């Protein structure tokens, strides 16, 4: 007999219809959640996203090629996640397991739809079925392994890592999804009683079936119940994505696509811009670009930027992660104020959201930008925010003196140009 299994086996039609209704509902909640964040990013100055998709096919590819490559390498191959010891291992395990289960579910549904169109289009059988079941069965363990590590890390709480109550919900939810998935499989094996390769291609499920050891009737009724529990958990998870840390599934790749960070480069300001806007540098959140605002939502608070920051390491009032999180808070407050029609409640960034001392603590060493897995440019936030302070005359002390000297003598030492070559005298000792 060709190894296969019935999609929605043991599930009555009424439950199948309810399943699809709930799937649609959870995706609607997901879409609404994404839309809410997207509206926040729209507060920023335009990045002309429309330009990306205009022109011939070749022209469009030319424009999106860099971004597509970044998404493939940084997100797809997890390149920027590497270099962080066991944390990297856990993230990659979870990611590989999750993606396998996600792609597997999509393929399963594709098979289901195709087999309804024509029986001959069904592909979930034979050698494909064996490879599919085996791959998902084994990679599901990676997913659980990664989840368990991250649960453990929530208990240990490394100082650089951000913590939210929803993190527990997310990770325990993942654990429950993984475990109920295996139980559903084991119960299915118990009532379906596959033989030979059809059973052995699911080694974890087969092992669990042996442990559960139920008769066919008990397995059928428990299978139906646990299948529903598993489905509810999955729909809950889909609906939760935009409201928890899981949102990095969406914002991370989007930001990696748009972020063309070049270390050591800064965006210029023109006099025309200053005349048109009446200010230098950002003063409220709307003065950042939409891409920059999206980057605030891409932040997972993994704390890698904080760990490498020399200012943070020497107890100065700067953490690049804190800057990003504070700006994110300002974005939310600004949106709320504008929605309520209270322009006066829009928080000014300087002083209120970010203290000047925080901005002056930065050495522009670029370590934070270089290490961020989702390519957030903390440095450009900090350095452009400084522009506003300087324009307002808020810089004093020795640094202000250096700037004045650069203005008057074209060098920060404030010495005359005529003395620039004095160092050469010692090269030709007078005899």
């Amino acid at each position, binding site marked *: 007999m060709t190894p296969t299994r019935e999609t929605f086996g043991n599930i009555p039609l009424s439950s199948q219809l309810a399943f699809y209704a709930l799937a649609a509902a959870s995706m609607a909640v997901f879409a609404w959640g994404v839309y809410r964040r997207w509206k926040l990013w729209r507060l920023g100055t335009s990045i002309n996203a429309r330009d990306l998709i205009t022109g011939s096919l070749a022209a469009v590819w030319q424009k999106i090629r860099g971004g597509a490559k970044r998404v493939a390498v940084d997100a797809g191959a997890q390149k920027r996640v590497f270099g962080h010891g066991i944390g990297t291992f856990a993230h990659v395990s979870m990611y590989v397991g999750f993606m396998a289960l996600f792609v597997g579910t999509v393929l399963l549904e594709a098979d289901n739809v195709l087999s309804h169109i024509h029986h001959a289009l069904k592909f979930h059988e034979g050698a494909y079925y064996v490879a599919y079941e085996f791959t998902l069965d084994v990679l599901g363990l990676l997913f659980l392994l990664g989840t368990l590590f991250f649960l453990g890390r929530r208990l240990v709480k490394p100082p650089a890592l951000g913590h939210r109550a929803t993190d527990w919900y997310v990770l325990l939810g993942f654990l429950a999804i993984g475990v109920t998935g295996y139980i559903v499989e084991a119960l299915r094996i118990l009532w379906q009683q596959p033989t030979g390769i059809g059973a052995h291609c699911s080694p974890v499920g087969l092992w669990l079936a042996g442990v559960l050891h139920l008769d066919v009737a008990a397995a059928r009724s428990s299978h139906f119940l646990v299948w529903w529990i598993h489905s509810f958990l999955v729909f809950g998870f889909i609906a939760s994505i935009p409201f928890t840390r899981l949102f990095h599934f969406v914002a991370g790749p989007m930001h990696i696509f748009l972020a063309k960070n070049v*270390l050591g480069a800064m965006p210029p300001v023109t006099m025309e811009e200053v005349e048109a806007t009446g200010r230098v540098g950002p003063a409220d959140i709307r003065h950042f670009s939409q891409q920059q605002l999206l980057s605030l939502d891409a932040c997972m608070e993994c704390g890698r930027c904080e760990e*490498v920051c020399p200012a943070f390491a020497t107890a100065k009032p700067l953490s690049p992660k804190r800057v990003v999180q504070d700006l994110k808070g300002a974005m939310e407050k600004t949106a709320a104020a504008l929605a309520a029609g209270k322009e006066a409640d829009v928080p000014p960034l300087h002083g209120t959201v970010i203290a000047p001392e925080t901005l002056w603590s*930065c050495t522009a060493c670029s370590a934070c930008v270089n290490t961020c897995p989702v390519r957030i440019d903390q440095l450009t936030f900090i350095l452009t*925010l400084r522009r506003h302070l300087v*324009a307002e005359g808020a810089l004093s002390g020795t640094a202000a003196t250096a700037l004045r000297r*650069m203005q008057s003598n074209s*060098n920060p030492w404030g010495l005359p140009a005529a003395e620039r070559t004095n*160092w050469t005298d010692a*090269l030709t*000792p007078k005899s």
Partner: protein
Amino acid sequence: MSTPADLPAAPTVKENPSFEILYWVGCAASYDRRAQRIARAMVRLLRHAGVNFAILGKEEKCTGDSARRLGDEFLFQELATANIETLNKYNVKRIVAHCPHCVNALLKDYAQFGGHYEVVHHTQLLAELISAGKLPAVAGASAPAAAGAVTYHDPCYLARVNGIHEAPREVLNTAIGGQSLCEMKRNRANTSCCGAGGGRMWMEEDPKQRVSTQRAGEALATGAKTVATGCPFCLTMMSDGVAANGGEARVLDIAELLVERLGLNPPAAPANNAPATS
């Protein structure tokens, strides 16, 4: 490509209009007594290798790196525009600078304002000259460049921001003649800052919170007797940091170490103590 003998040791673009490479000295080596020694070492090396170079002299202005990163964009643009005009007037194509902040500004900041040049860090040019056999050791070279262990502090604007970390090591390997380098845990692209970037060079720092103290501590922990750097800001900060740690290690630019190794130091000591202007 040798410099005619009748030209000054460091000819200006006016004195040597047929120069092939412009040596961008930068403000630190122009005015800071300690950093001036890097420029003199560079000139000795360039002349020894027979490089046809020139400096801008009093026509050089600050690149504006600190101004831009401190947030004074228009002061930066003023300086950048003036420098680009000067560089274009003398038809400069290739620039060597020993300051990573100058390298980054000339390369990345100036490109935004129409200044496009081939910019190399001095360690890149020196590595090139060494591999071309143009910097041979003088017979009976005076002294081994570095006694005891040597470590190298990667400047962030060189190693991380511009990806230049192998050239300094190649030059250093020649300069310390077969000794192996003691690497700090954080090196190359993962280097830690000296604390002077982003305009912090011009700010006062609480002695208890100095980045330089922490970083120099890491350097001294390798057991190094010599801390090599490739940036005049790092040189200042690491020197302060070594002192703050109560360390004895010498802090030197790679070019200075190479000069020692090749025995290119002037024979008479007083030459090094020429009146400085700072």
